[in-house]
Every structure is written in structure tokens, then in C-alpha cells.
């Protein structure tokens, strides 16, 4: 779950990190009201889940409440990288003395969260790390022990920051690290962390992302504190009809798992494939032999006939699909005969001849003899484990190309 800036600010604020007195709104009128309450120059910021707001004109500085309302109106209508804003944030214009950077991310090699701090905030941290490595402090935190303030202090001091700046920034980074762990974040970033002319520190912008697997136990934060609806998944793209339908079929039955994606695919060969690693291998194998996959899919965990049938049907219903290839790496849990029944049923129900429609069936493993009997009966070409995933994919591609030539 990726958060909008106004939500990320609420999260850091709740963790005890100072923020400016901002307001979130969805109409120009509300923006005017917030600006009046702030009582000085304001910044109007588009609330979208994409970068490059400033460049796209999604951030504007207003001197008066009227201007704030006018800019809010413009920004609310402005699409940025294909995203419409959910609202605008009205923020007092801060008198910034210096910008810093603070974040916590996962280091999957060390298997620990990593704190990062820089005294060159406001810009891309990767660029700073490359060009000014001595301006980036790093430090891992334990997964078991409480985060000590001194750990944050060490990271900040490593960039050469000292004096009151060090003492003011230390609790902020320590709190960010604690919130990262407590709220199951995979990214917690404050950029810029601003030192104002009066010497105080505030988070001027924040990015937060929560791990999907942890959403179930963070309901208090997600549903109650932030009021995010269950169905607001914030996928990075709008799921296609195919993707939605496959998801529905999967959810209707708890046995086994099917997944389907067709974002970025538009070929003529439908793929009914599995499991995780097998699907990646097979998609490459089809493409590298000149085939054009119509989709990506995954079958696993021993699905029912209805589920296998449902996936095959959705693939077959896609525009431009001429044949399907049914292929998996050797299965130990998923039953070959059940998948065979499912895909044949899909062909028959759509009035198609399984022998013509299924370019190849390559699923070796559990219950393969029973599966082969069914495939024999319908005249579907199949192969066993002696035919590699590469060769099976190659046969499917050859068949669809023959068909096109005829």
C-alpha cells in the first residue's frame, strides 16, 4: 500500500515527528479556507501517487487565499503521468534554512532495516550517494532490540552534522525507524526534512509504503486512522477485464491458486501455465522462440476443475487468441488430470475443438497417467518430462505459426 503525501504526513505526525500545519482538501473553496486559517503565503500540492509533480505544474506557491483557491482549482484538474489527484494539500510556505534527507528501507542482504541520512536533502538520494558518498550516513537497526536514539545519532553524525542540528534531527530519524518497524513499512522517507530559519526541524514531504502482507494487521492505521477503504488497493495500473475476471474466479473457490496478467501482452498464443518459476521460464521460452504470448498466468496449489477451466476460458476469450499452450514445470501437488479436464472443458464450452485449440499440453508429475488418458481421448498433443520446457514452448510456437501460414 502506497500512501499519498497527506497520509504519509499524518503517519509521521502520529509518530511524533514535527510537520507544518497543513490541510488536505478536495475543493478550491476548502483550499481558500485553509489558506485563510494559515494566514500567510501557502504552497498548493497535488496529491498523486507519482513523481515529478513540480515539473508537471502540480506544486504552486500562493500569496493570498484567493490565489490558493485558484491554484487548487487548476491543480485538481491537472492529470500527472496519467494520474488524477485525489485532492490538494495546502501547506504554509516554510522559511527553510537547510534541507536534509532521512529514510528507512529494507536491506535484504543484511536482512535488517537500513537508516539513511543526508545533509543534502531535497534532491534524489541515489544521486547524492553517487556524487557525494561522504554526505550519506547509513546504519542498520536490529529486528529484535528497540531502536536506540544513539543509533540514529551515529548515522547523522557520520555526515558531519553536529551542534543543535544533530540534536534536533536525532529523535526524528529514531522515530522514523521505530515507525518503519511498527507499521510494517517497506519505505519510510522524509525528503526534505527542513531546518527552518528559527532552527526547528519539520518534515516538509514524506513518502511511505506499507508491505501488502502486513495490511491485515495494520487495519487500525489503514481503516480507522487514515480512513482508507478496503477496495482502495492503489494498484500501479488499472487492472484489465481479463485480470479482474481471473481474480474473481480465483476468489470464488479456495482450492488452488490461479493468477492472470495481460498488461503489456498482446499476442495470439494464450498461456495457461504454472507455477511461479515455471511461468517465468515458459513466458521467456515462448518469446525467445518468436512466439507472441497473449498473457501471463500461474496455476498452482492443486486447483479445482472449475478453476482451471475458468482460467483457460478467460485466456481463450481474449481478443486475438488463436490457441492456448498448457504447460507447467513438474508438478507434485497440482494434479495433471484435473488441469487436463479443466482446459478441455473450457474448449468444449466455448465450442472449440480441444485438439485444434490446445497447441501443446506439457504437465508432467502427479496423476499424469490419468491426465494422459483424457488428453488421448480428445486427441490433444501432450508431452512428458523428457521434453524440456524450452522445447514444449517451441512446439506451441511452431504450431501457431503453421496455422498462420496455412
Amino acid at each position: 500500500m502506497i500512501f499519498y503525501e497527506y497520509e504519509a504526513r499524518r503517519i509521521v505526525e502520529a509518530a511524533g515527528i514535527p510537520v507544518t500545519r497543513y490541510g488536505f482538501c478536495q475543493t478550491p473553496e476548502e483550499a481558500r479556507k485553509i489558506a485563510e486559517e494559515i494566514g500567510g503565503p501557502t504552497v498548493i500540492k497535488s496529491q498523486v501517487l507519482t513523481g515529478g509533480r513540480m515539473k508537471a505544474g502540480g506544486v504552486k506557491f500562493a500569496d493570498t487565499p484567493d490565489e490558493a483557491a485558484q491554484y487548487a482549482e487548476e491543480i485538481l484538474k491537472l492529470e500527472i503521468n496519467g494520474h488524477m489527484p485525489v485532492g490538494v494539500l495546502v501547506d504554509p510556505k516554510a522559511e527553510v534554512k537547510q534541507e536534509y534527507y532521512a529514510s528507512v528501507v529494507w536491506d535484504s542482504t543484511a536482512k535488517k532495516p537500513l537508516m539513511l541520512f543526508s545533509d543534502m536533502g531535497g534532491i534524489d538520494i541515489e544521486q547524492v550517494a553517487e556524487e557525494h558518498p561522504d554526505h550519506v550516513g547509513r546504519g542498520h537497526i536490529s529486528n529484535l532490540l528497540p531502536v536506540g536514539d544513539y543509533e540514529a545519532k551515529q548515522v547523522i553524525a557520520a555526515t558531519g552534522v553536529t551542534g543543535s542540528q544533530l540534536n534536533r534531527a536525532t529523535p526524528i530519524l529514531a522515530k522514523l525507524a521505530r515507525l518503519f518497524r511498527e507499521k510494517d513499512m517497506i519505505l519510510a522517507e522524509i525528503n526534505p526534512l527542513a531546518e527552518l530559519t528559527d532552527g526547528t526541524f519539520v518534515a516538509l514531504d514524506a513518502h511511505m509504503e506499507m508491505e501488502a502482507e502486513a495490511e491485515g494487521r495494520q487495519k487500525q492505521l489503514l481503516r480507522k486512522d487514515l480512513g482508507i477503504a478496503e477496495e482502495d488497493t492503489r494498484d500501479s495500473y488499472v487492472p484489465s477485464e481479463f485480470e479482474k475476471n481471473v481474480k474473481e474466479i480465483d476468489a470464488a473457490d479456495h482450492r488452488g491458486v490461479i493468477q492472470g496478467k495481460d498488461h503489456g501482452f498482446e499476442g495470439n498464443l494464450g498461456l495457461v501455465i504454472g507455477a511461479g518459476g515455471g511461468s517465468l521460464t515458459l513466458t521467456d521460452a515462448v518469446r525467445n522462440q518468436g512466439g507472441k504470448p497473449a498473457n501471463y498466468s500461474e496455476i498452482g496449489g492443486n486447483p479445482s476443475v472449475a478453476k482451471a477451466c475458468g482460467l483457460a476460458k478467460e485466456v481463450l476469450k481474449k481478443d486475438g487468441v488463436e490457441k492456448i499452450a498448457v504447460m507447467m514445470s513438474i508438478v507434485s501437488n497440482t494434479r495433471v488430470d484435473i488441469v487436463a479436464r479443466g482446459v478441455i472443458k473450457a474448449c468444449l464450452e466455448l465450442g472449440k475443438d480441444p485438439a485444434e485449440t490446445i497447441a501443446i499440453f506439457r504437465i508432467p508429475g502427479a496423476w499424469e497417467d490419468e491426465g494422459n488418458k483424457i488428453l488421448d481421448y480428445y486427441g490433444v498433443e501432450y508431452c512428458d518430462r523428457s521434453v524440456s520446457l524450452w522445447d514444449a514452448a517451441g512446439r506451441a510456437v511452431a504450431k501457431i505459426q503453421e496455422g498462420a501460414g496455412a
Partner: protein
Amino acid sequence: MSILLNKDTTFIVQGITGREAVNLTKECLDYGSKIVGGVTPGRKGREVHGVPVFDTVEQAVDNHGSQIDGSIVTVPPGFTKDAVIEAIDNGIKLVVVVTERIPRGDVAEMVEFAELNDARIIGPNCLGLIVPEVCKMGGIGGPAKDASKSYKPGVVGVMSRSGGMTTEISSSLTAAGLGVSTAVSIGGDAIIGSTYAELMPYFEADEETRAIVIYTEPGGRMEAQLADWQAENNSRLPIVAFMAGKFMDDESMKGMTFGHAGTIVEGKEDSATEKIKRLEAAGITVVERIDEIPDAVKERIGS
């Protein structure tokens, strides 16, 4: 002859009364593994395929009368961390975590606890490991008769981020007459208990193992870590790698997850192309096609 397991290895199954755990227990027993107990809180006194069920790991250890070597943990995600720590706290040194969809904070916590106690975690989101014709710990290879088809003893150590591909690759090594010393399904998550590089010293110390095959995917830094290990350690073992999911390098696939939770290309570093470059620079043979693996191994070991 093997890593991590041998013919005397004893283990328990935590969550043994679950549907999948019952199957897995039967598969392992049929293969000859020594399962000395099972744990499901509140189910003490039952039996699963002749294996006694206890409420706690402590009871299972008491009943066994001496230290138990390992545990397969197959409990729901919300209970996994506690179950793993319970096992380690009771002296178990090898924990296979089958459970999927565990938040990585929990995984990191149990891995750190394992490190402090000299224990090793395989997984999560994995099928476990197998020493052909000796011991199978987890669902790897499926029912005993199917596992026997795919896995014959031999000289290649296999490590794979995909459980299914562990068996697919091992089967091709078996068919080519090379066989497998130990195959480990290491798991597909972003953070796992044992990475390729962390298991290399075990294979290095195993005299029977003469080569390593890894199955790998885009996402994460595990391959970079292996490349670094290989460059620093002057290993006697040649490594052959197969990288799946090259299509994910396409611009249109950026930020999307396919297959496993850990498979997502976020930066340039974790793309398939970049990983292949790193592996090759470290002297690791990267094959283009899955069916080229056995010949590449033969070439590297000169047989």
C-alpha cells in the same frame, strides 16, 4: 554426500494437523525421513500417520528424549514467527518455513533470532530440501514415488528460488546421469533465511558435490551477493545459473510482480540483464535455455 540433512536427521512438523501438513508428513515418512513428532496447540494425544502430536515443541523434545534436529513450520502467517522462535528456543537448529505471505519484518526477526542461536532457516515460501534416497524435509518433489523419479543421488547441488523449478531442474540432472547431492528450495520472498551465498560454504564442505546449479529470477540482490562470494572465495565448485523472467526487463513490466513476492524490478540493479552480467563477471556460467543446464554442468566439471 549431502548438506544440512543425513540419514539420521530427526525433525518435527509444526502445524501437523493442517490439510497440507498431513500430506507432507506422509510424503516425508514414505521417503524414509525420521519425523519424531508434530505440534498443533490443543491437539495433544492425536496421531498423524503414526506420528504423535503435542501441544508444544518442548513436549515433543521431552518425548523424543534428546535433541531434535529440525522442524518444518507450516502454520498460518500470523503464527509463523512465534512457531519458528519456539522451535529454535527448544534447541532445534534447522527450520524449514513453508508458509507464504509472511510480512518481511517477521521474517527478519526470526532470522536474526536464528543467527543468535546458531540455527538456520530455509524459506519462507519454500518446499524444503531433499537428499536423494536419504531424506526429504518438506513437500519438495511431491509424493515419495514422484520424488524418486526426479531425484537420484549425484554430484550437483541445486538451489532455487522456485520450488517447482527445483524439481524440474533436478529431474533433468538426474536424466542426464549427473544426479543431485542436495537440492534446496530456498524460497521466493524478498527476505529469506538462507541465500545462495549463505549455503555455498556447506556445499563447499561436502565432498560429493562437484558443481552447483542455481535457478534465479529478477528482483533483490541475492545474485549480486553470490557473485561477490564467488569472487572472494576461490571456490572449487563451478556454478551454472539459469535466469527466468527476462521479459520483466521490458519497460512496460516495470514495477510489476510476477511469480514470487520477491520478483519485482525496481531499480536497474535487480533487472535480469544486470544480474546476468554480474554473475558472468564472477565466472558463473549463465545458460540461456533451461535445457542447456546439464550440458553446461558436464562441461564445467569436465565429464
